[in-house]
């Protein structure tokens, strides 16, 4: 494909894709902060009510700590955190992640099925890390009461939109049976 002809675009705010028992739309991301080190100390100082979430773990609080690794997490808060970026003597490092991640909300009983369309093997239910590879892209997966949320580096959003739209077109009527 001639690389000069890229005209696809990312899912915009307010738009939605219907895909196999699921409705996919842009979700707000709040303020994003990356923390590493003593996660307990970091969370209690920066977002005391935020639960530390593993793969597809459900939380409907606006403040969340999405666990990426043993000692690394993405903090999502409604307001900017009060501490400055850098090293904190309580034992953690903090970075302003700006708008690194875009978020797609997958609402509906087909959310896990949509996920199954982009994973190389079955979803790692129960994994303490929310990070995995979906359609070849590194993403974070959290749970909501109605489905899932996919957090992805925003430069990948266009590709992800295109792929999920294709999943929606391919998945047939008998999919949920």
């Amino acid at each position, binding site marked *: 494909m001639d690389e000069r002809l890229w005209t696809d675009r990312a899912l915009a705010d307010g738009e939605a894709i219907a895909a196999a028992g699921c409705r996919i739309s842009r979700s707000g991301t709040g303020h994003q902060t990356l923390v590493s080190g003593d996660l307990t100390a970091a969370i209690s100082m920066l977002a005391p009510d935020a639960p530390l979430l593993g793969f597809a773990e459900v939380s409907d609080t606006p403040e969340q700590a999405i666990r*990426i*690794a*043993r000692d*690394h997490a993405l903090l999502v808060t409604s307001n900017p955190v009060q501490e400055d970026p850098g090293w904190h003597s309580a034992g953690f490092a903090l970075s302003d992640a700006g708008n690194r991640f875009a978020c797609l909300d997958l609402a509906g009983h087909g959310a896990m099925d949509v996920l199954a369309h982009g*994973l*190389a*093997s079955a979803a*790692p239910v*129960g*994994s*303490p*890390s929310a*990070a*995995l*590879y979906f359609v070849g892209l*590194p993403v974070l997966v959290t749970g909501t009461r109605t489905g899932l949320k996919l957090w992805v580096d925003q430069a990948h959003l266009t590709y992800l939109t295109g792929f999920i739209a294709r999943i929606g077109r391919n998945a047939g009527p008998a999919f949920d049976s």
Partner: protein
Amino acid sequence: MQHFPCPFCGLRNETEFHFAVEAGHSRPEPAERVSDAEWAAYLYANKSPKGESREVWLHLSCGEYFILSRDTVTRAVLGSVTLPGVTR
């Protein structure tokens, strides 16, 4: 499609991992006292065992390096442990 156990994240499919190096090779230092032969052996000489092998692998999703023991013939996974220095 192999499945490897990341010590933190649990069982994940092989596309999330990257082979780093054979385990058990210490970096010869300081440079001034390392012979060409020693350094070349560190860089290139591998045991490449037929059977049980201890290897350092990287889990790309979480960025953790760890030791994976596996059988290079049957491709059975024998276990994984963290690198030294991990407290929890």
